[in-house]
């Protein structure tokens, strides 16, 4: 049977209900939480910090990201906490997704640390993490030329579905999972990961709907950042 109606009844281009809040971790320089459906990410930024001389860059600061899924965050088995092959990789791509928009020239020789914690997961965790981290970096006052917004798009039965959840990700006949992060203002893509098979046209369509979803998510990001200072 072809997949036409989504498991949770959303439209193909409809994202899950989202919530964002800035300034959730008091001791951090900047922090934010981002929730899409059941996926819930917290990000905290600390720094500038002293780091060992092998990691230092004398011209500009170093961005260090740390992605972590909490032990009972998923609906399945307990996640083993701490660094794993998967979390190491996601930490790296998160850093690379954020770097193009931020300017670390004011922090030569030092490091800016971004900690991303997933308290609840239902697919699209790296995207939620990047979206939260971008808000946290802005809250921390790191100079950046735009926010980064991220969403995961799935291609199931040759159709594009935006912001897929775990149920759709595990669709029995297989699906292609495309994680996209972009700067909405410049329309530049900073992260593009693809897991599965898609045709050229499907990928194009997927990227277009990712852009549409990112526009909506960015509105929420902007609102959360401004709400912190609301009278």
């Amino acid at each position, binding site marked *: 049977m072809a997949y036409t109606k989504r498991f949770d009844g959303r439209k193909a281009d409809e994202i899950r209900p989202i919530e964002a809040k800035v300034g959730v971790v008091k001791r951090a320089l900047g922090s934010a939480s981002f929730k899409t459906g059941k996926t819930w990410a917290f990000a905290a930024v600390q720094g500038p910090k002293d780091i060992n001389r092998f990691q230092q860059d004398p011209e500009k600061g170093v961005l260090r990201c740390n992605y972590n899924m909490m032990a009972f965050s998923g609906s399945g088995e307990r996640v083993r906490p701490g660094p794993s092959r998967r979390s190491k990789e996601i930490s790296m791509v998160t850093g690379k997704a954020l770097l193009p928009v931020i300017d670390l020239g004011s922090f030569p*020789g*030092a490091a800016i640390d971004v900690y991303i914690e997933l308290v609840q997961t239902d697919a699209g965790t790296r995207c939620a993490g990047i979206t939260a981290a971008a808000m946290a970096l*802005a*809250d*921390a*006052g790191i100079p950046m030329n*735009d926010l980064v917004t991220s969403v995961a798009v799935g291609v199931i039965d040759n159709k594009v579905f935006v912001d897929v959840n775990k149920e759709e990700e595990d669709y029995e006949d297989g699906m292609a999972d495309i994680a996209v992060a972009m700067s909405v*203002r410049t329309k530049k893509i900073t992260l593009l990961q693809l897991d599965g098979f898609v045709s050229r046209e499907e990928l194009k369509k997927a990227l277009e709907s990712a852009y549409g979803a990112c526009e909506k998510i960015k509105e929420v990001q902007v609102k959360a950042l401004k709400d912190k200072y609301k009278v």
Partner: protein
Amino acid sequence: MSEIKVNERDIIIPGEIIATGLDYLPSGNVIREGDNLISTRVGLVNITGRFVKVIPLTGSYIPKRGDLIIGKIADIGLSGWRVDFSGWPYQANLSLKEASSDFIERGADLTKYFNYGDYIVAEIINVLGSKIIDLTVKAPGLRKLGPGRFMQVTSAKVPRVIGKQGSMISMIKEATGCRISVGQNGVVWISGDSPEKELLAVKAIEKIEAESHIQGLTERIKEFLEKNK
């Protein structure tokens, strides 16, 4: 055609377009990308003539020449002191020449001037890269701090705590009778006759930090100080 897209004192976030066209010039925390002027920080828009800048509301301290900072003596070397100050991961240098106008003999006991753990108000005279920051205490108002209460505010809020020409801080000083020093790195030193008065000053400064972006701050702080006197 040049056009301002936002109002003065609007809260703005990174990536937001403040103005279009070439008639306006980017100033602090604003960059030009093509035709657009874009903010790089979360802050308040400030337009003076043709210059557009963003007054940041958040962020860590970045050392600048001429800033007054409050730091702690972390180490004593052969030819000076190393000073730790909050908001910056590296230590600054206070050389013998800049510490005192006395003649200090080779091998003299430097703890007589500044001992480990002493807090000082110092001026940054040189910033060369991230690790070479030179300090001086040879200017009026720069000194070793006595016993008192320390608190930390966001360094972006320091201009608000001080106020225009020091108006805010002198108002708090008058109302509480405390002696107060504010470093650009966000460290505030308060020393008063009684703990109650010191606490009132702490609370007033906390209030400034929380409400600095809302207009009519001076009036509110004045009211707060009078009510709690």
